[in-house]
């Protein structure tokens, strides 16, 4: 029943895909698009259904299906049954076909509203790959093929595949391979329909990142599996099938970087188109080689039918791409006058070239044995030395360029390298740390330097950006950091990925160059020393575990921890499966394998390796995946309005993004429903008032009624407990730099002299020539003779004068004075009033608190009174200066 349903779904899937392709020839554009989308959705749904059925059949151990019987058994635990589903050729094809059709549907549904002329071609191209796979499945590699009689027991999954890494490795690789079809399909569609590159360049990037991240993660997981399961102590053997996945990944990385140049300067379009095509071609070719059985590999598990078809498909893609690029070459010409190349662009181009070079080297390693076999020769492989000579220098050079890139000038003409000091000190710290940990090899030290630079430069650049933003907008640090992070997700993703690559470089360098090995046949009680660590054999024991006979050695490490390397003989498999004992650390991994033993337990051969810095490879791979994820992540915070340039009339105000832009003729202070508390008690409730610019307002009230609190709220030092406050039409925080406050206390540093206090304020306000401004201001308030006296030694009145000088030093637009006349003699009062009048003529607003109503009426344009928690204009006999009677707000 399952089998029939599965076959049916496969056929339906194929039909849907075929319909999607056929839709390309329909008459109207709209019909074409709709039909293609419909076909794709039906096809994907059917294929996903088939996949689900297939997995369920495995989970149930339905031995009627040949595929299940070959890999699954009732004795196998459920997680491994599911892994078995895609460990075989048919399951892998089904997984790939489902994911490819999902990718196609995602591309189709992604732009439902916009219908582009090239879209049907794109969808047809995307649909043809899963269609080919379905064809292969229906003809040769049917996942739902049934056996005439169901066997009593199945053949359990190979023990080495029973690892969590095998649960994610195939899906990740399939996802990567599927997603790598999208860029080429988009390019092809646009080129065919004669559309310019702006139709595809922005759409391509997310798919490239997805493919890159999935392939990279899949490769890393595969390497990890090889490391912990296979028992030979390494993680990468330059296996042709491993190369088959590595080549497209390198090409995708090159494509990512080429896209940057393409988007920014409009050059290298042929490059990006060619790389997209190459990525897909080599994906298909790699899969063909892997399934061809022409190469010897540990990955021969997945050898199956379909190689020829896939190879033909790869050739077709290559031919189609070449034709399109040549025929539509004019669309891919560089922009008429591209921006000149900056040093950083050149570095990126060199890096991409290096990546392509590495891909070519890996491709050579992949093709050579296949070509030799095809031509009848004996199996010939490419020696690892070849890769060492080509790959390593290229990778090192690429790594150095990557580390230098943030420092290079991004625009031509700017010759200075930013952040050179930080980079060199970080590199020095990295080398020092590595040196202190015992590393002496220059290549590893170089990698440590690169890692330190990649770790420090972006963080420091980001931190300075956050500080800058926080200052300009008035947001607190946490809020500013969130907003900056949200806005620069792409860049941060790239930086994280680069950091990951630097970690991987360090790990690979350390484990390749500094590895040590020792093998010894030990009797119980004897020990083996390697790189300062002692392994002592306790004994060898045989036991039965699950479905395997296990021979286990107990080994103590340095006297405390116990490692248990073992060999397991699973039922139904002749060769033993090693169980590696691993002691992992950031500095080095200790890898212990039981290589041999004597039957009576007298001696055991223990093979130990020390692989330094291996953990960094996995950390780096994880970081690269995270970086990809961050680049793809959607925007967290709602888009704010961009920062507008300050208008000539408002030199100090820069509005925050997301806030309303300031209204040019807004009152200086606008308060609605303001409520303030002091010491837990409401001192002001529901105050609403507007204060116009260029006026002087006095606030009267008894002691303790809340004048000081209100002033502090207006100065943005305290937040009101309720109500809204606008300064100069914008948020209060944005106006901070243009406020001057004279408080109850003089707010000066007692231990600094008067002049030093003023110079400090002038420098922090970024005034030109701070020292002379300070001297000038002190002279204005007639304190020059006491300028070099510590503020602690000044009298109350003298301190008040210095405080006034500090308040008005930067000619603030809003001047808030709390009892300014205290302690001042008449001369000083006159100077103060003159200065204030002068500033008011230039547009400054003054608000002061007084306790003398007569003085208030004499000097102020408007008088407000706070009484019993309410603020209102003072009621007074008519005078030329008083404001109109205003009803107290409710």
């Amino acid at each position: 029943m399952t089998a029939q349903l599965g076959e049916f779904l496969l056929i339906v899937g194929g039909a849907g895909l075929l319909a999607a392709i056929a839709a390309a020839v329909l008459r109207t554009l709209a019909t074409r698009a709709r039909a293609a989308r419909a076909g794709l959705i039906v096809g994907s749904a059917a294929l996903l259904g088939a996949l689900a059925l297939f997995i369920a059949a495995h989970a149930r151990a339905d031995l009627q299906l040949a595929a299940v019987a070959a890999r699954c058994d009732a004795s196998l635990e459920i997680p491994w049954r599911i892994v078995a589903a895609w460990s075989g050729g048919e399951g892998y094809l089904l997984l790939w076909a489902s994911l490819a059709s999902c990718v196609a549907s995602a591309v189709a549904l992604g732009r439902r509203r916009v219908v582009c002329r090239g879209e049907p071609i794109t969808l047809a191209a995307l649909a043809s790959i899963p269609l080919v796979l379905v064809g292969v499945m229906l003809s040769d590699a049917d996942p739902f093929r049934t056996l005439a009689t169901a066997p009593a027991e199945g053949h359990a999954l190979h023990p080495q595949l029973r690892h969590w890494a095998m649960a994610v490795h195939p899906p990740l690789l399939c996802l990567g391979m599927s997603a790598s079809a999208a860029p080429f399909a988009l390019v092809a569609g646009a080129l065919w329909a004669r559309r310019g590159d702006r139709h595809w360049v922005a759409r391509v990037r997310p798919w490239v990142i997805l493919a890159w991240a999935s392939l990279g993660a899949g490769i890393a997981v595969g390497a990890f599996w090889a490391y912990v399961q296979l028992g030979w102590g390494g993680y990468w053997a330059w296996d042709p099938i491993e190369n088959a996945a590595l080549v497209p990944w390198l090409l995708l990385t090159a494509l990512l970087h080429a896209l940057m140049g393409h988007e920014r300067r409009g050059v290298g379009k042929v490059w990006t188109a060619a790389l997209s095509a190459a990525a897909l071609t080599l994906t298909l070719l790699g899969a063909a080689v892997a399934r061809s059985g022409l190469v010897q590999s540990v990955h021969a598990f997945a050898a199956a039918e379909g190689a020829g078809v896939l190879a033909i498909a790869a050739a077709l893609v290559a031919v189609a791409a070449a034709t399109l690029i040549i025929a539509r070459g004019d669309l891919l010409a560089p922009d008429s006058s591209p921006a000149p190349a900056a040093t950083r662009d050149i570095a990126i181009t060199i890096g991409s070239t290096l990546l392509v070079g590495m891909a070519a080297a890996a491709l050579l390693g992949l093709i050579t044995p296949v070509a030799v076999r095809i031509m009848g020769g004996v199996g010939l492989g490419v020696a690892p030395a070849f890769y060492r000579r080509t790959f390593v220098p290229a990778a090192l050079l690429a790594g150095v360029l990557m580390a230098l890139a943030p420092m290079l000038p991004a625009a031509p003409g700017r010759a200075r390298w930013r952040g050179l000091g930080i980079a060199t000190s970080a590199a020095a710290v990295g080398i020092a740390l590595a040196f202190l940990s015992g590393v002496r090899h220059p290549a590893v030290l170089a990698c440590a330097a690169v890692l330190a630079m990649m770790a420090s430069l972006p963080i420091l650049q980001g931190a300075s950006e956050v500080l800058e933003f926080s200052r300009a907008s008035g947001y607190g640090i946490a809020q500013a950091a969130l907003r900056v992070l949200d806005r620069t997700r792409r860049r941060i993703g790239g930086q994280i990925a680069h950091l990951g690559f630097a970690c991987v470089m360090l790990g690979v360098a350390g484990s390749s160059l500094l590895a040590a090995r020792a093998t010894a046949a030990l009797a119980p009680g004897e020990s083996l020393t390697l790189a300062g660590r002692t392994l002592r054999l306790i004994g060898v024991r045989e036991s039965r575990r699950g479905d395997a006979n296990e021979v286990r050695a107990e080994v103590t490490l340095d006297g405390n921890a116990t490692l248990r390397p073992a060999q397991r003989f699973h039922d139904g498999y002749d060769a033993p499966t090693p169980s590696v004992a691993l002691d992992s650390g950031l500095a080095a991994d200790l890898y212990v394998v039981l290589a041999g033993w004597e039957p009576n337990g007298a001696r055991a051969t223990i093979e130990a390796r020390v692989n330094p810095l291996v953990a960094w490879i996995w950390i780096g791979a994880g970081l690269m995946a995270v970086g990809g994820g961050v680049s793809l992540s959607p925007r967290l915070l709602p888009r704010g309005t961009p920062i507008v340039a300050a208008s000539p009339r408002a030199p100090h105000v820069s509005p925050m993004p997301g806030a309303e832009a300031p209204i040019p003729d807004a009152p200086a202070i606008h308060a609605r429903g303001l409520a303030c508390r002091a010491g837990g008690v409401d001192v002001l409730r529901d105050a609403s008032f507007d204060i116009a610019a260029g006026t002087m307002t006095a606030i009267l009230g008894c002691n303790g009624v809340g004048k000081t609190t209100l002033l502090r709220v207006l100065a943005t030092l305290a937040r009101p407990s309720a109500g809204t406050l606008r300064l100069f039409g914008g948020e209060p925080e944005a106006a901070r730099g243009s406020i001057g406050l004279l408080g109850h206390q003089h707010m000066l540093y007692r231990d600094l002299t008067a002049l030093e206090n003023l110079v400090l304020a002038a420098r922090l306000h970024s005034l030109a020539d701070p020292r002379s401004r300070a001297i000038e201001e002190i002279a204005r308030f007639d304190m020059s003779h006491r300028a070099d006296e510590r503020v602690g030694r000044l009298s109350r009145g003298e301190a008040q004068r210095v405080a006034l000088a500090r308040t008005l030093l930067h000619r603030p637009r809003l001047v808030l004075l709390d009892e300014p006349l205290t302690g001042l003699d008449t001369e000083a009062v006159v100077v103060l009033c003159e200065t204030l009048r002068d500033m008011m003529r230039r547009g400054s607003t003054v608000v002061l608190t007084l306790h003398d109503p007569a003085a208030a009426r004499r000097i102020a344009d408007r008088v407000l009174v706070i009484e019993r928690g309410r603020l209102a204009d003072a009621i007074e006999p008519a005078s030329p200066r008083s404001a109109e009677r205003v009803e107290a707000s409710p």
Partner: protein
Amino acid sequence: MSGTRAMAILVAKDLRIEMRAISLAGPLILAIIAACALGLALPAGPLRHGSGALCMAVLVAGLLSIERGMALERQDDALASLLLIPAARAVLYPAKLAACLVHLATISLVVTPLCIVFFSMDLGDSLGRVALAGGLGLVAIAALGTVFSAALAGGASSRLLPAVVAPLLLPVVLLVARGTPSPGVLLAFDAVFVAAGWIGFDALMEEVA
């Protein structure tokens, strides 16, 4: 004005005030007395005694000096004038942190040789590592001390600073005194403390009226 420049100005101001007010004298003397008293009371043998005494002396004296530094800032409400300047407000926490670090480093530089002598401490070739761990410990003390001294400012509660911050810092003392093998843990926690301290400090600087 760039953040680093504003920070430099503020740190220079703090150091200048320090030289005039010499508020470091009290804590220094306290640290020396603590080192002497512990040196008299404890036998010199185990390295732990010396490092423990050193850590305690630096911790208590350091927190005291941080508290005094913040008190100087709060005198006459001078802090408010800095809060009004956006360039200064954004870097206020790092500037205070740097100034506190200078104080702590001074105390450490004075007390460490004393303890090495009193307790006949033999650091051997792990000197670099110990110095690194000690430095990271100082950063942790400064990070938490700055934010909590700002939190507890005013009157009686400010005397509580050592009592409040010490429980949070005891694990740091443990790690440093026992000679932790990897400074990575301390570095991670310094990052957490500085980040939490910065956000908390910014939150504290906004009164709610």
